């Protein structure tokens, strides 16, 4: 019995050792992202899978594998399992939360993997080799600047914010900085949890409370959908602009069509995961130096450049 077990164990070890050895030339890039539980993360999953497919086809020496996880603890387990079963040459990670993922990613780094962090930073920036993120402050700031300019510097605003997080705080701060010095007044600001239904209700209540609203800003496009429906139902004509943010395809399509109420959009594109995967691939396939930080701008999307941010096949 014991001998059989030993032999079995020996064979297993040999097989495990042979696996990576036979593919020694091939570099593995693991991508760990949150599971698709709302529009934006669905976009992340879509673009990560697209990048994996394109890179696997274009560079036979690279293998990109994508793993999605529904929670921070599941993500920790996923990257531990990945690194236990094979050698990871690189890990591209969009962490669920900074606190919980910092130590596990550090462990992987210590095994010699190239670490690319996307969107949410880890608590220790020394872990990352490459950092790719959008600019949440600019999402709020550029929207505010547009409103200040188009409304001649004065008017009444209502704002819908998302879930209490750093992302939400940064967007609101950028917006408040953007209207500073003008006579634009924020009448009210409340949480609607980045949810269309809650935004619909909140907008109905804003409309009941304030007889004169000149513009609405929902700091995410899911909420903007609810806002637009509430405005439509009320039949009110005082609202000149209703703007969102993030780059949902339905809203980008409105911009392309020259919608009067939603003529612009600010991107916080889920496609940034694709940028990160391609840059990581360039490190191996192109021998191109990529260590550093890349902050994607959040320029105003107008009719002129909307096509660049439009992904008709993406769920977001």
């Amino acid at each position, binding site marked *: 019995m014991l001998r059989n077990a030993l032999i079995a164990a020996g064979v297993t070890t040999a097989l495990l050792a042979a696996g990576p050895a036979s593919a020694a030339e091939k570099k593995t890039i693991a991508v760990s992202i949150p*599971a*698709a*539980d*709302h*529009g934006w*993360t*669905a*976009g992340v*999953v*879509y673009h990560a899978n697209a990048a994996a497919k394109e890179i696997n086809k274009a560079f036979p020496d690279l293998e990109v594998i994508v793993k999605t996880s529904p929670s921070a603890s599941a993500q920790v387990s996923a990257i531990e399992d990945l690194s236990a079963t094979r050698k990871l040459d690189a890990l591209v990670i969009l962490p669920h939360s900074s606190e919980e993922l910092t130590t596990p990613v550090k462990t992987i780094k210590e095994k010699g993997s190239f670490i690319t962090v996307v969107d949410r930073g880890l608590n220790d920036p020394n872990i990352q080799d490459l950092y790719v993120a959008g600019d949440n402050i600019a999402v709020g700031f550029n929207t505010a600047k547009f409103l200040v300019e188009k409304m001649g510097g004065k008017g009444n605003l209502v704002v819908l*914010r998302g879930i*209490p997080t750093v992302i939400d705080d940064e967007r609101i701060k950028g917006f408040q900085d953007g209207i500073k010095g003008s006579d634009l007044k924020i009448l*009210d*600001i*409340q*949480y609607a949890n*980045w*949810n*269309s*239904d809650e935004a*619909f*209700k*909140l907008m*109905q*209540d*804003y409309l*009941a*409370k304030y007889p004169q609203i000149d513009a609405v800003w929902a700091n995410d496009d*899911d909420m903007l*959908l*609810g806002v637009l*429906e509430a405005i439509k*139902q009320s039949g009110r004509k005082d609202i000149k602009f209703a703007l969102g943010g993030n780059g949902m395809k*339905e809203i980008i399509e409105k911009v392309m069509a020259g919608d009067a109420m939603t003529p612009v959009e600010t991107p916080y594109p889920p496609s940034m995961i694709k940028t990160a995967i391609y840059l990581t691939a360039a490190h191996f396939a192109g021998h191109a130096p990529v260590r550093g930080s890349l902050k994607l701008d959040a320029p105003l999307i107008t009719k002129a450049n909307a096509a660049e941010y439009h992904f008709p096949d*993406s*769920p*977001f």
Partner: protein
Amino acid sequence: MADLAAAPPRAQHGWSIGWGDAGPFLALAALVLIGFLINPDFLSANNIANVVTRSAFIGIIAIGATFVISSGGLDLSVGSMAAFITGVMILVMNWAAPSVGTAAIPLGMAVALVTGIACGLLNGTIVTIGRIEPFIATLGTMGIFRALITYMTDGGTVAIDRSLRDAYRPVYFGDVLGVPIPILVSLAVALVAAYVLYRTRYGRRCVAVGANEDVARYSGISVARVRTMAFVIQGACVAIAAICYVPRLGAATPTTGLLWELQVITAVVIGGTALRGGRGRVWGTVAGAVILEFIANLMVLSDFVSEYLVAAVQGVIIIIAMLIQRMSKR
């Protein structure tokens, strides 16, 4: 046990509302008065119509939950189920729209109803035939329904076909003689439910099973059948709510109906139904759903609650509403 003794005589005069059952309505009246004092706009016809219409989804689902809870069960899956039914319905309508035009809408409604009843039957049989605690069984199906809607939408949004949008819109936004359609639908559902719960043999059995399962069984009641039926009624109610919900935003997403189950249970309990079973109050449930929506509305219309503290104040008001309800019973 006291509930068991008290239940049958009350069921005799179920249509009239006794003083002991007035609690939720007193709480509602108090809330309306406070709302008016805080902001007179609160009582504007427009605001009242908006808020009561909004409460229709939770209200209709909660009427179904009144059956499940008074029969001693619990259904945590209703929010996910609503999202799932919404998704199925939209997909069916979009699939049928090119060939049958607006006839796709009644087809979608029928499919929604069948799906809802099937989902309820699934919950019911897992609980009764599978003999699994309702809490665990519906926690399981909650995850299943939520995952299915996420899968159907690829995590994004599935929107209703543009050609159907305008034809279907009146089901949420339309009105008959000034009364919004969702309010009429929930009134109709409540009337039927009140009749079934208070005036039929099934209703009395439902409450008896919830009050004491063993006594009900010795009395010759098929406990499993009664409980399963309660879950089926719940499924049908969720489907009716979904039918009213779809035209509002015209889309289903993985966050549709998130945490509705908690609002539903809160509405049922504020309404005077006993959470451990044995007592069901349909009209109280309706009042409970309206109270919840009024509280949220008041938070926005008043100016003295910080946006960071809204949830805490809502919690306090719910507890106070429960206390009013309790005290009026003595």
